[in-house]
């Protein structure tokens, strides 16, 4: 307090600690100091590990040995491994089913909820709630709900005379069960859609209505085009996110039955931390990394074909 008063009473130039440095240089130094922790963190926890794991992917590292270069052996092992291909398939099926399901269901819910009705916000809380819960707790709950004999789902089915499948124990049903369960956390999208919907100028809807358009015309020609940047962003982020599926298959099925739910992440984790094949796991991680990069690149490259950006209106 005393110091600030002192500074306040003195002319500014008198106590400039470094009169030699110009203001711009001082600012640049301050900026560097402020961002230093984050930059160090980026180097230590991201950039250097990224490089090292690239290097390890060409070695026979197993945590105990000194890594020795083995050329492309890990990549060869990976591409000739049936379980690796299976994990790719499982992950693709999961991502390509769950992401459209998430986006369509949540968008439909958001469109229904985007009305000026009393207490409508209450529903947002209800639908959002499962997204706050941990994957472990959710997995545990669903293992119980989907229990073949005593689970609630099969008991309800029994009441209407249907014999439910052995959800998590059946080769064909296990992955579907995890997909169905994942839809439960769909409410996570709602705030994003709702804020996007509220940003659409109402005049646009009115214009369509005056021209005799119904709700489908409004959706098709106003809502969806204006939301398309958000849709693109969500599509990319969530496909990436879905390829990291790990907790649920580990907790619910342990990758089984017969590897039906062994996702890419789960298989990589096992190679790394259960079989100590760190070199192979690094190669797997790098393949995923490159795939994600390619996907992101493709999505944004293709976006000009179907994404409508506000700024383009002037050009058109």
């Amino acid at each position, binding site marked *: 307090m005393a110091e600030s008063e002192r500074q306040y009473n003195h002319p500014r130039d008198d106590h400039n600690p470094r009169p030699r440095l110009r203001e711009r240089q001082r600012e640049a130094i301050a900026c560097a100091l402020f961002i230093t922790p984050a930059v160090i963190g980026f180097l230590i926890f991201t950039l250097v590990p990224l490089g090292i*794991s690239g290097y390890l992917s060409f070695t026979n590292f197993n945590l105990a040995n000194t890594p020795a270069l083995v050329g492309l052996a890990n990549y060869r092992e990976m591409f000739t491994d049936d379980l690796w291909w299976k994990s790719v398939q499982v992950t693709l099926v999961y991502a390509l089913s769950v992401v459209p399901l998430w986006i369509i269901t949540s968008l439909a819910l958001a469109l229904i909820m985007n009305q000026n009705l009393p207490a409508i916000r209450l529903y947002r809380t209800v639908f959002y709630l499962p997204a706050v819960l941990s994957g*472990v707790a959710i997995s545990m709950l669903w293992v119980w709900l989907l229990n073949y004999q005593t689970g609630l789902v099969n008991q309800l089915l029994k009441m209407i005379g249907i014999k439910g499948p052995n959800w998590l124990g059946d080769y064909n049903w296990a992955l579907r069960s995890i997909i169905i369960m994942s839809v439960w956390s769909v409410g996570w999208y709602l705030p994003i859609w709702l804020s996007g919907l509220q940003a659409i100028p109402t005049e646009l809807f009115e214009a369509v209505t005056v021209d005799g358009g119904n709700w489908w015309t409004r959706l098709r020609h106003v809502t969806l085009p204006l939301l398309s940047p958000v849709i693109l962003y969500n599509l990319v982020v969530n496909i990436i996110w879905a390829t990291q599926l790990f907790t649920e298959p580990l907790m619910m099925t342990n990758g089984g039955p017969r590897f039906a739910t062994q996702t890419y992440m789960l298989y990589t984790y096992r190679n790394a931390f259960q079989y100590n094949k760190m070199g192979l796991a690094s190669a797997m991680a790098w393949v995923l990394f490159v795939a994600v990069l390619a996907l992101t690149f493709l999505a944004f490259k293709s976006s000009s074909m179907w994404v409508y950006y506000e700024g383009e209106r002037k050009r058109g």
Partner: protein
Amino acid sequence: MTGTTTPARSAKPHQRSRKTHRRLTAAFTYLFLTAAGVLFMFPLYWQVATSLKTVQQTLTYPPVWIPSPPQWGNYLELLDRFPMFQYIGNSTFISLAVITGTLLSCSMAAYGFARLRMPGRDLIFVVLLATLMLPGMVTLIPQFVMFQRLHWTNTFYPLIVPAFFGSALYIFMLRQFFMTIPVELEDAARMDGAGYFRIYAQIVMPLAKPALITVAILSFVATWNDFFGPLIYLSDNEKYTVAVALRYLQGSVRTRPENHLLMAAATISIIPPLVIFFIAQREFMQGVVVSGVKG
């Protein structure tokens, strides 16, 4: 509907049918949303209900919808057999440490990126942001080896220390917020001779309270729910966080019909994130909208 109106009020029928139409839409909306909401909430109800049943009640058909009398003793049995308070303590400690580190490092970086000019600053920011797209697995193995060499495995350090070195997502969120603070306040402070750190600590930080709260909440829930980190780094039972403890419980009691105890444990584990969610719902969803990334 229009038949009952008198000719004198000929303007009304149209209005009235629109009003009826609106009411019908509202009724259907509520009906649909309520049905969907019940469907969404029922699994959670079932979790709590199961946790209050006797073993026998969890196995019967038709299912016992409402446990009566509720077996509160299940929770005591769980606390008696497993050190749940220890797990909760561990999770709480780690979460608080991570929040502290995140708020400090991310707000500083965000202030630098939002307000202070330096050659190459924006390039660094974009590179930092790009790490959001990085699958965690690709940096995990070297990180693990590094922490192992430091003899930090089976300690909380690998879970806490990185938080003190920034996180791209939260830096991005805070930067967005800092840019909305009027720069005139800082200019005035600089006129009075305040240095950059003083401006950051005494002007920007107090004004950024809502954004800081959002970051604190998101990082709390993310840390509390984190499974992968504790799974890899913690091996002693007494160091487990709640998330890994749940997995341990599921493994250890799987062969016995103790779903009521598992559901009790799951219920305890979700209480802290739920309480925070109910208290700070607005900040929570705001954060999701800004970041577009699930915690």
